[in-house]
């Protein structure tokens, strides 16, 4: 099976200002071995990764009731929910490259990503 290269990311309860930082992260990721884009909505499709504000009770409640908690790898912003095994955390203040590193970490551990270091350019036959 071919490894996945594009990942749909669903943001849950992320503040407007930080959505902008996420958008920048998605743009920066284009053209890399693992690229990220916002999940289609509404309704949200089947995201590969969920991003949640780990410091917002409302966001955590939305995440817990969304059905993604035990299924979808989750990236927490600010603070991690230790009960979620398939997760990573990015401390605030947020920076696109840090978010990108955490997304790559999640896809390496829980997805079917092409490892960045072993990706080779296509060769002619």
């Amino acid at each position: 099976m071919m490894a996945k290269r594009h990942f749909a990311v669903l943001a849950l309860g992320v503040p407007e200002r930080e959505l902008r930082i996420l958008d920048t992260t998605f743009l920066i990721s284009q053209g890399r071995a693992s690229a990220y884009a916002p999940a289609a909505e509404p309704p949200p499709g089947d995201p590969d990764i969920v991003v949640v504000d780990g410091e917002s009770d409302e966001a955590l409640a939305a995440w817990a009731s969304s059905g993604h908690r035990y299924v979808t790898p989750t990236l927490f912003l600010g603070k991690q929910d230790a009960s979620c095994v398939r997760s990573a955390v990015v401390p605030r203040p947020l920076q696109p490259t840090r978010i990108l590193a955490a997304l790559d970490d999640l896809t390496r551990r829980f997805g079917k990503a092409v490892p960045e270091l072993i990706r080779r350019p296509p060769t002619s036959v």
Partner: protein
Amino acid sequence: MAAADSFAALAREFELELLHLKQMLALLEAERRELLTGGTEGLDAITAERLVQANALELYAARRAALLNAQGFSADAIGLAACAAAAGEGGSELAASWQRVAEAAGEVRDLNEQNRTLMRMLLAAVADGVAVP
């Protein structure tokens, strides 16, 4: 704090807030250039600096509100107009400073919204590309 000192403090805050707004405008213009040319190399640094400036602007807005409230004025345009009227001789300069801040803040909001729209258009194109099997 005496009223005259408060008015002077408010005028100084406006000057500093204006500097941060100009810095934010420069960053948004740089971001726009990156987005329009399809470059992403500079976006990370711009975003980090934009966050710093946004935090500074929030701080100045809070300090402005505190200074106005301490003088018995509301922390909005009406309160500022009343404050300028009460400032006596320095009132017109205070009002002019506020006008410069308000105009720069408007430019920041507009450019920020334009960049956001541009970014969403670029991402929509990416998402369309991803959807193709």
